[in-house]
């Protein structure tokens, strides 16, 4: 491979690795916009990755696997929704419980799947015309269908958030639930809906990991990506379009790490594996400073349970 094609393949892998983070980041942005903090992203991703893997493995259909993993993430999020919305429990602790649950569940049921490999991964579908564009084509438009789905998700979700009544209601609920309720919006329904949506997308991120980027099963295969996604929400300042940049930045670190390891570098692998976490650490620190100085802020009632007045 000449230098030129090495860079192209590195960038194409950046998009793939970024997609794993992009779905959960978008999902968490919407959950948080509704005022619910879900720290269970890592757990939901693990469940999505596991269910996605075993369904793809047994049916030999990676699309079905991806779909099943997505649904599984959504179902897992409902536990958190019930505890934080209906029972008004502490969202930080409930989210952590969800992360522990995802780890326990997949370790327990995943025992006999360890080291199994998927033969039918998501196939590459080159888009006509678009894939012929120099540089852009091979990087962005010679991917699998789920990557294209992620592009559409970003655009549609940006549109919903800023240009529709649904988005307006969502933001109202996260900013001031009481006022939203007075406007006739069902706070509980909106919060349930977007927590579930966040779960679906976390599941999608996990399922994409095991049906495309890393098509095998290992204990704890998501390796902290759920936490990176939560950090990216702050980096993106709760904006789906900015999430795209954050996700690809970390996708790039991932792809680079992989490429270096494959090329037999002398850098110790422990140091290479540490890079995404150090990167996230730096990024979240810088974004927090920017958030503080620019007066961009999280949804006002993030993490605060809503209690409708009972007479």
């Amino acid at each position, binding site marked *: 491979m000449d230098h030129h094609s090495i860079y192209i393949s590195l960038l194409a892998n950046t998009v793939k690795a970024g997609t794993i983070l992009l779905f959960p980041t978008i999902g968490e942005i919407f959950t948080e916009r509704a005022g619910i903090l879900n720290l269970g992203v890592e757990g939901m991703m693990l469940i999505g990755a596991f269910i996605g893997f075993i369904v793809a493995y047994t049916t030999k259909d990676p699309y079905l696997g991806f779909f099943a993993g997505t649904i599984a993430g959504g179902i897992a999020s409902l536990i958190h929704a019930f505890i934080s919305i209906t029972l008004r429990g502490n969202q930080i602790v409930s989210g952590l419980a969800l992360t*522990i649950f995802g780890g326990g569940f997949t*370790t327990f049921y995943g025992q006999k799947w360890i080291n199994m490999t998927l033969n039918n991964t998501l196939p590459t579908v080159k888009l006509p015309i678009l894939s012929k564009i120099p540089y852009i084509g091979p990087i962005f438009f010679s991917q699998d269908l789920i990557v294209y789905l992620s592009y559409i998700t970003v655009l549609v979700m940006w549109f919903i958030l800023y240009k529709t009544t649904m988005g307006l209601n969502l933001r109202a609920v996260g900013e001031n639930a009481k006022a939203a309720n007075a406007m006739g919006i069902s706070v509980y329904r909106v919060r349930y809906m977007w927590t579930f949506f966040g779960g679906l997308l976390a599941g999608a991120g996990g399922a994409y990991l095991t049906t495309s980027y890393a098509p095998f099963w290992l204990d704890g295969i998501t390796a902290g990506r759920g936490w990176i996604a939560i950090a990216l929400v702050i980096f993106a300042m709760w904006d789906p379009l900015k999430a795209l940049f954050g996700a690809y930045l970390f996708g790039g670190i991932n792809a680079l790490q992989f490429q270096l390891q494959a090329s037999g570098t002398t850098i110790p692998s422990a140091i290479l594996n540490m890079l995404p976490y150090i990167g996230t650490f730096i990024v979240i620190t810088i974004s927090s400073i920017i958030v503080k100085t620019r007066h961009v802020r999280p949804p006002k009632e993030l993490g605060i349970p809503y209690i409708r007045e009972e007479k």
Partner: protein
Amino acid sequence: MLYFEKRQSVPRYFKVIIPIISLLIGLIIGAIAVAIVGINPLDVYGGILSNAFGSWYAFSETLVAATPLILITAGLIVVFRMNVWNIGAYGQYIMGAIFSSYFALFASHGLSKPVMLAVMVISSMVGGAIWALIPTLLKIFWEVNEVITTLLLNYIALYTLKFLMYGPWKNPESYGFPLSKTFPQTAILPVLFKGTRLTVGIIFALIAVLIVWFLIKKSKFGYEVRIIGDNPLAAKYAGISVNRNIIIGMAINGALAGLAGMTEVSGIVHYLQVKIGADYGYTAIIVAWISYLDPLVTILASILFGGLASGGYSLQITMRVSYGIVGLIESITLFSLVGAQIFLNYKLRWKNGSS
């Protein structure tokens, strides 16, 4: 329809009954999870019980697992009371292990056992505290979310440990296994009872709990912590320095987690390796919650969850039941606990017709 009505007073027994019921729910769902894969839950729980409490040796192993849990939880209580979420106890534990191992491996020459152990205790506490203070300072100066930073520091600590174990600190005679040289005899914590692995570490843990109990219940610091937890704004108006108390709390938390790491390498493993201890950081969060952040109750809860961890671990070897079952039971218990908090403030009522 069902609805919640505000409670005027909370029956006292609720605080006892809720944790017990939560644990029961955890065990019942755990039993269902086990039954699904065709294993008899009674065998599993019987196995955990006998491996955790069935004999003096089994119980001593439970106390071995409870030692780091008690130490970590004692610190968590202090910061959780101020609504500061340290999820990084695991990283602080690893740093404590690394710092104290440095002296055991490279600076033990000519030191007597008491001096050596004192150096290791202090260095582990310093290491853990430094690791806890990084995210604390970032939180205080720039409002960087400590849940995320402490968690990321877990991974960074783990890979630092891996780097040392595969690289500079690796024992050249370990046949490729990622572990350090064995500690000199002077760097090993004395065992309390012959034939067990229970060391004076458990005494460190009990002392730590007593100190935390005193701090929380009897000192000005504890009083301020309580006000900060109830209402940080009111605390500010009352002239309490919230930041100073958070720094002190996190330093205590990190130091105790670091000490837990030291008791593990110096007391149990006797060398440094990639896998030291189980996921004590997460389990300690559950222990703290199930004890309602009460230092004395954490001793009991730590023994309970230490038993679950130790029994579950033995089960993995003897019955080949995945250790994941422990995480499942723990998480369901935690879900139930958090969910049940509502019953402390509200009662469930039934109302006819629509509201």
